């Protein structure tokens, strides 16, 4: 067998991730997003609880389409992170580690997250 030319450059766009790989990388991305949202959430809570004016300011901010979009993104991140996290906890105790089961639970996480996010988006925008 001919040895590979080194170094090998992997083309990230040609790597076909399995479903569980997508769930895993999105778990990371959503986790990082939630980390960034945490101080913003504390700030928003602080302003909204300080006085009536602060509460009205936050309530008005929530009606802006861009902040609704931001909220939908956060809802996606939270839902995906929570569901994928529960799946990872199950895998930790060797529950559903076989390929077919792992594939089904990955699909379940992606579908449930999509459904919940779309429902939330519909409730926020409609």
């Amino acid at each position: 067998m001919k040895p590979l030319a080194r170094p090998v450059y992997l083309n990230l766009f040609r790597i076909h991730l399995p479903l569980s790989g997508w769930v895993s990388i999105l778990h990371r991305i959503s986790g990082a997003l939630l980390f960034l949202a945490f101080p913003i959430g504390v700030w928003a809570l602080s302003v909204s609880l300080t006085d009536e004016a602060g509460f009205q300011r936050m309530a008005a901010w929530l009606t802006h389409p861009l902040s609704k979009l931001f909220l939908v993104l956060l809802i996606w991140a939270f839902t995906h992170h929570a569901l994928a996290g529960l799946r990872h906890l199950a895998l930790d105790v060797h529950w559903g580690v076989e390929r077919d089961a792992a594939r089904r639970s990955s699909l379940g996480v992606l579908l449930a997250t999509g459904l919940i996010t779309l429902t939330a988006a519909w409730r926020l925008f409609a």
Partner: protein
Amino acid sequence: MKSPTGSHTGTGNWLMQRATAVLLALAIPVLLVYFLAALPLDFSGWQGLFAPLWSRVLLLLSAIALAMHAWVGMHDIFMDYIHPVAMRLAMTLAVVVVLASSVVWLAAVLFGASIGSGT
């Protein structure tokens, strides 16, 4: 001697990540139902949600668990993608500062003088 880059801390981190994950999986649904069931809200209703001691205690404990969980998670991400040690330590430190100050700030908001005293 312990390595300054934390190569001995993996198992403890792994366990903390799981323990805080379970705590959050139990606490967040309770808080979500509590808050969503009260919608829509005006200012006094919103303040009223934080009047019961249990809601403030549960919120603060969840935030502490979240901070520990996020610390390990961000550290894991940095371990994988940020290879220069000085840069990684600086970024981890920044994460710890953000998380710790958020928790302290939340504690001040929840247990400060303005809530629960009727003002």
